[in-house]
């Protein structure tokens, strides 16, 4: 069966096998090229001889190698019965093993084929300095008149402050001023946030709160006159406002 020299080589290679099936494939390949016709009895003998050699050299083998050995021994014993008595089950198991060896063989060849392909990053290289393409913004412009006007008033106020050195005494925006501002600005019939109609005031929080209060009073007054509608969908939420359509009843 296996010569001593062969054994030597096999034992040295033990680390290279990933499991008994891998080892069996290697042994089968030494026997024949056509794995479908592999002699199971001979394969079992080779395996057992290899195992014996490995044990003599005290190689630590995983238990599965021994399980496979036991199974092969059993398979061999049944295949060696007189032809008439060879059971179909043993034949089927032999065929199964041949198929598994052939499948593993194909997988290994496919792996070799992939290994030898020109890999990306090994034989073929992508662009090393990919460039970020610029973004072109094409969306619609979002800005409204109130923003534009507020920007202007803020600039004007800043310029005014810079020019006039004497301090102007601050006084809150009056309800009348807020009323006149809101009555003129609020033209739409869509619900809008009341805060969009704040007259421009100094940027300090107190002045803004006073302006908000005055604008709310103005809104209530205009609503009382039936010119506009006010609505607050949830407690402490934003107050919404719109102009009442002509002819609509309050």
């Amino acid at each position, binding site marked *: 069966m296996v010569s001593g020299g062969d054994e030597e080589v096999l034992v040295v290679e033990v680390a290279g096998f990933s499991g008994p099936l891998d080892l069996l494939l290697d042994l089968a390949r030494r026997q024949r090229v056509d794995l479908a016709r592999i002699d199971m009895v001979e394969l079992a003998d080779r395996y057992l001889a290899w195992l014996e050699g490995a044990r003599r050299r005290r190689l630590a083998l995983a238990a599965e190698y021994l399980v496979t050995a036991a199974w092969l021994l059993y398979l061999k014993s049944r295949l060696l019965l007189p032809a008439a008595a060879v059971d179909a089950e043993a034949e089927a198991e032999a065929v199964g093993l041949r198929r598994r060896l052939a499948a593993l063989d194909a997988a290994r060849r496919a792996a070799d084929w992939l290994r030898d392909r020109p890999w990306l990053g090994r034989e073929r290289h992508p662009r090393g300095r990919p460039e970020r393409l610029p973004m072109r913004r094409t969306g619609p412009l979002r*800005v409204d008149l109130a923003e534009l006007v507020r920007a202007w008033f803020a600039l004007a106020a*800043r310029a005014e402050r810079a020019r006039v050195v004497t301090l102007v005494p601050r006084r809150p925006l009056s309800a009348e001023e807020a009323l006149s501002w809101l009555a003129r600005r609020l033209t739409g019939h869509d619900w809008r946030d009341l805060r969009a109609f704040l007259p421009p005031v100094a940027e300090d929080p107190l002045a803004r709160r006073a302006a908000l209060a005055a604008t709310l009073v103005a809104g209530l007054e205009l609503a009382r006159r039936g010119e506009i509608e006010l609505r607050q969908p949830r407690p402490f939420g934003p107050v919404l406002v719109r102009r009442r359509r002509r002819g609509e009843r309050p």
Partner: protein
Amino acid sequence: MSGEEAERLVEALLFASAEPLTEARIQEVLGARGEARAVLARLRTRYAGRGVVLEESAAGWAFRTAPDLAPALARLDPRPRRLSRAALETLAVIAYKQPVTRAEIEAVRGVAVSRGVLDQLLEHGLVAPRGHREVPGRPVLWGTTPKFLDFFGLASLDDLPRLDEFGDGLFAARGGGTEDPSGA
């Protein structure tokens, strides 16, 4: 190796490199296959006018996409845009004080108006040049466009709210309708 092969190698090398490569480095890879300087010159000629150009900078040689294609290569971003604070203020000054020079806008805003800000407004078609101020340097005068009126839903520039509409409010303009906070 033929000159053609040296060219192929340098082409691949420059393409795959993460950094621009110096002539010395290229020569190192090229070895005896060719003279880097000559190969680079041939390669640059080959790519001249293509979508990709071979550029030499202080850092070395590198391929880059032809600059003139940048607009066509840009990815489109369809999200709604807002004007930057600077653009909004600049537009406001132009709207209220037109026709106005860049220097005048800067005087009101107190900061320089960058090229990008005016470009933004031009791109949206909200402002346009309106001739020149006849002073030394003949600076361009800027004004709003009909599209500006359209965009903000104004029938005319007279519809822009004025400061004095607040009676004697905090920031009421002095005097008549032509408030001029810059004092110019």
